[in-house]
């Protein structure tokens, strides 16, 4: 445009001012406050205990009490479960999604493509809560699965399908699957098929073509999918609250408890911050990886 850069800079600043104002006050500031509070202590009525002598508080090491408490052996099984479930969800989503993304991007007839893709996108946007609830209808004691199995005479007693880790896994995979399929599709769609041809001409069988050409070429989509599935899985609490039992509590439920039942906000803030740190480290690793590969990050 004919604008001088100085002028356009000013226009741009005016245009982004509302976003900075909104997110600065109601997003960044709350995150900073949460971080500060995570070093505080719970007061008698669930609020914050006032600190009389800041220096003494810091030098005594009390400010780290919540972080120390978060590493208590009591909570380790919860973290461990959150991590392995998120990892398992991510791996299973990847294994399930790659063939379907490949199918839509490369194998399916061109006229089907848009429809097949739209069918993946739609659940991506519809209510997560309701889609999770639908699994309760299927898995509960009087639910569809048990009714059908009883009717067929395959079982005599209803099975306990709901309120266990398997149910949570199903719910997680169900909820996160589109987050994996879409980035995989995006990078498979861009794949230059003549490379596969070249590989095959040079004598590679299609198995080694897949592992040595297709997979490395679609690595951006794979990594983006892993990040997009892992992050929501590890912070999940609706699925575990609805489909899981007391024994399938995740870190999300632990945080939520501190704000509702236990009323220990400083402790809840400390765990929430730890979760945020894990997510941010993951994102930074992803950004670093994309940069190293010289690719533009897909996220």
């Amino acid at each position: 445009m004919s604008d001088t850069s100085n002028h356009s800079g000013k226009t741009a600043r005016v245009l982004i001012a509302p976003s900075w104002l909104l997110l600065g006050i109601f997003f960044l500031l709350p995150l900073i406050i949460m971080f500060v509070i995570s070093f505080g202590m719970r007061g008698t009525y669930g609020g914050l205990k006032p600190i009389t002598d800041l220096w003494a508080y810091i030098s005594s090491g009390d400010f780290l009490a919540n972080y120390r408490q978060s590493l208590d052996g009591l909570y380790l099984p919860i973290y461990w479960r959150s991590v392995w479930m998120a990892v398992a969800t991510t791996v299973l989503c990847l294994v399930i999604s790659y063939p379907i993304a490949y199918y839509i991007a490369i194998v399916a007839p061109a006229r089907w493509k848009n429809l097949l893709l739209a069918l993946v996108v739609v659940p991506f946007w519809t209510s997560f809560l309701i889609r999770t609830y639908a699994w309760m209808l299927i898995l509960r004691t009087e639910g569809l699965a048990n009714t059908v199995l009883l009717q067929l005479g395959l079982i005599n007693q209803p099975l306990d399908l709901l309120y266990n880790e398997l149910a949570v896994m199903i719910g997680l995979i169900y909820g996160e699957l589109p987050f994996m399929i879409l980035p995989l599709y995006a990078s498979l769609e861009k794949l230059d098929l003549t490379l596969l041809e070249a590989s095959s001409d040079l004598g590679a069988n299609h198995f080694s073509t897949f592992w040595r050409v297709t997979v490395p070429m679609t690595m951006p989509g794979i990594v983006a999918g892993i990040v997009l599935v892992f992050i929501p899985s590890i912070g999940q609490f609706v699925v575990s609250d609805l489909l899981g039992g007391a024994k399938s509590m995740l870190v999300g439920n632990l945080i939520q408890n501190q704000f509702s039942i236990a009323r220990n906000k400083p402790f809840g803030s400390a765990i929430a911050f730890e979760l945020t740190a894990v997510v941010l480290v993951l994102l930074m690793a992803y950004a670093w990886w994309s940069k190293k590969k010289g690719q533009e990050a897909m996220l």
Partner: protein
Amino acid sequence: MSEPTQSIETTPQFVGKHEVAPRGAAPFRWERKAMGLHSLIVYIFLYAPILILIAFSFNEARQTARWEGFTFQWYGRLMENKLILNSMKNSLIVAGTATFACTIIGTLAALALGRYEFKGKGPTQALLFLPIIIPEIVLGVAMVTFFGIMQMRLNIWTVIISHIVFSVSYVAIVVRARLAGFDRSLEEAAMDLGAGPVQTFFRVTLPLILPGIIAGALLVFTISIDDYVITSFVAGAGATTLPLQIYSMIKVGVTPEVNAISTLLLLFTLVMIIVAQRLQQQPSDKGERK
């Protein structure tokens, strides 16, 4: 979802993006068939629970999963349920207000990011990206703590504010994508013909990016009306939204009324999403009025 495998059988030649089968892509027929079958199963996995929920909302049976006849009565019951009606009203107020605010703020940010090079562009992009990627529970916790410290009573306004915060980025992203495929020469032509910047914006730029803005607005409305996690932290008494109401009903027990209200919400968002998708797909065509 009708069997995608079929079309492969009828077309022996590899047909995809490319006319000729690239050797090495999926050379064997059984491979293509297996992938098609796998895809079919995944689609069934994605849609069966939703369809089952919809079917149950018309089932006469109250407790069991047996089909005992078709009925509309659960939908009728909803209209008598004051709690549900009230939560619907709250959800519409929240989603409507949040959509209005997000559309304006997000579009402005998209214009800045899509049009100008300026100092702080990187941080601005990061700022708009973060609310999407930070775990929802962290955002909920941070916001309720913030409102507590600021002594803001939790009510419908705290819900609206938090919904604006987590949705504004979607408008920015969608509108920016629309701007990327935008023919700048049209604006230059308008300027050359003597239109001022303001006039150019309203007569040329805005009509061209309008489908993007509407798509963004529909997405925000959908996200807002569906949100449970963050709302559950920041909603005060009397600000129960539809997902909160559904959640508390689910926790008490599975009932046909829950199925009915869930079906309504599902179908409503489905329509919104399909419209939004359509708007995003169409390139600048179909003269929007003016």
